[in-house]
């Protein structure tokens, strides 16, 4: 028991880090749901593509040997192209796979199938171009293994702090974007009522496209962070990460940005506690059980409002 108590704070740190990343991916789901009321099943794969982009940049930087391997330099260098590329993929998905369906008056489930197709398509494009074997990131070159210290008896690595810090800054930035800018106001208007927003002069499809771009870019950033943290990536990684992040989004209340962050944190902590206290093999089952319990007693998610009927499937 004393053993357990001593590793518990350590596990909490893991849980919070994991939760921040889940939250970051969940934002993509929740934003798209907010404006289009659809589950973007391909979002997990956009996240995976971000991770591959980060890996490619890291390999290039290490091979080039022209600059010092300093995290302050390398991490932004990995994040920017990953976010940009992921954002462009998100734009492409919206333009090619989803918008035509809405313009042709599909029911709510048509875009879902299109998104599933897009997900399979993205996974296999990466598998075909990069191979099916997993890629390894040389994280230790950027963050040496001995960069860790003790806070109150908990051993924390610099990498974990950086990940949590970046994720936190991005969530804060997104929140500011949505709450304080004109673009954010248009997004909220479209989420409230697409037609009325159009009547009030909002370029609805422009806003939807921007939402896809921003959400996907955040997913790409999360991909880089996850790649650095786990040091191994493969073309199928988007599946389970996407599932977890989607769960986080629903847990917090889908369509609600703060809910996505909260849901991610709760899910990360539940998962790390479940694998310490119960059994690592059942950790996913336990996080889904928590989700089901929350939804049964609070059917709109933790921070969610009751959605009007027409916003539901």
């Amino acid at each position, binding site marked *: 028991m004393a053993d357990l108590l001593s590793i518990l704070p350590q596990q909490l740190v893991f849980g919070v880090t994991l939760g921040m990343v889940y939250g970051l991916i969940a934002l993509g789901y929740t934003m798209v*749901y907010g404006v289009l009321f659809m*589950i973007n099943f391909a979002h997990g794969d956009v996240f995976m593509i971000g991770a591959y982009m980060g890996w490619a940049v890291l390999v290039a930087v290490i091979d080039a040997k022209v600059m010092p391997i300093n995290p302050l330099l390398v991490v932004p260098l990995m994040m920017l192209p990953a976010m940009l590329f992921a954002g462009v993929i998100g734009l492409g998905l919206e333009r*090619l*796979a989803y918008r*035509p*369906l809405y313009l*042709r*008056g*599909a*029911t709510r*489930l*048509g*875009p*879902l*199938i*299109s998104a*599933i*197709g*897009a*997900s*399979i*398509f*993205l*996974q*296999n*494009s990466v*598998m*075909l171009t990069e191979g099916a074997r997993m890629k390894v990131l040389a994280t230790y070159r950027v963050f040496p293994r001995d960069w860790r210290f003790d806070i109150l008896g908990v051993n924390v690595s610099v990498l974990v702090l950086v990940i949590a810090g970046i994720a936190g800054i991005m969530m804060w930035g997104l929140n500011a974007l949505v709450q304080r800018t004109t673009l954010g106001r248009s997004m909220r208007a479209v989420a409230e009522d697409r037609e009325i927003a159009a009547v009030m002069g909002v370029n609805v499809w422009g806003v939807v496209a921007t939402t896809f771009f921003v959400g996907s870019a955040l997913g790409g950033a999360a991909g880089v962070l996850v790649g650095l943290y786990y040091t191994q990536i493969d073309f199928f990684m988007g*599946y389970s990460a996407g*599932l977890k992040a*989607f*769960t986080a989004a*629903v847990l917090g209340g*889908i369509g609600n940005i703060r809910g996505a962050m909260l849901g991610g944190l709760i899910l990360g902590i539940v998962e790390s506690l479940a694998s310490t206290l119960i059994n690592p*093999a*059942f950790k*996913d*089952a336990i996080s*889904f*059980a928590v*989700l*089901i319990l929350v*939804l*049964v007693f609070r*059917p*709109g*998610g933790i921070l969610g409002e009751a*959605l009007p*009927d027409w916003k*539901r*499937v």
Partner: protein
Amino acid sequence: MRELGQRWRRPFHGSLAVLCLLIPVVVPNDYVMGVIARICLYAVLALGLNIVVGFAGLLDLGYVAFFGIGSYVYAFLASPQFGLHLPFIVALPIVILATAISGILIGAPTLRLRGDYLAIVTLGFGEITYIMLINLDRPINITGGPSGIIRIDPPSFLGFALERNDQYYYLFLLLLGLALLASKRLRDSRIGWAWQAIREDELAAQAMGVNTTRAKLQAFAMGASFAGIGGSLLASWQRSVFPDNFLFTESVNILAMVILGGMGNLLAVILGAAVIVALPEIFRDFQLYRLFAFGLMLMVLMIFRPNGLMSFEAKPPREEAEPQGELAAEPDPGASSR
């Protein structure tokens, strides 16, 4: 257009049925038989999911859970795992009962949920089922863990055991026929009307005296029992079951069959099953590019037929409430100009 469709409906369906019966004679190819048998198996599953999604409008992303439970229960009843060797005819009803009960158990906590929340909760149940299947080999070995259950008995009738793919094909076709008939009768029954009323407007259905709780549970139980049939077929055909047969992707595939063809339309659902099973087979020569092309096709199909391949037959849901069907049936020229 619809009157023309009505007149040709019976001959069309009849010739389709005859064609299905003749396939093993015309193409006595083991591989082709195998693919068509798989189409039948998945069509049964898709018809089951269609009851939940297409009729009652409840988005279920964890349908594979029932498929898995059905397969494993059949495996328990007819393999050396527990030393039971029940004949197919006896095991099948038990499996159907077991999956129907599991449908009620999973359906009950989700009754208050709708739309995407229902989707994620059913998805969660699907994942939990998979994790259970893969981990319940310790401390007591129930499911055999990742290595599954092997040496399952083939279906045998009065001592005649099925071996060849064409024999399986006829069994599968028979069960698909029964599933189709059951679906049709359910759709046109009182309970089917209740489901469709819930799909269109739950509140209105309730106001009209539909017991929505019971109807939803019935939809879940009925859909799940179809998965029980599918599960028994899979287990007895494969002669083994593994947890990896029941991944989330399988739920997605079955849902894609329902939606691709055209939700709620029975023939369309079977067409969807055929497309989803056959497409990857057609691209099999390009092994690596198989799934790539499959994903692309799904997107393209949805862009050009956003409401399903056979959506021209399906009436838009709102019009169904109007007495259009009755008017169209009368030879009154004034009715059409109205």
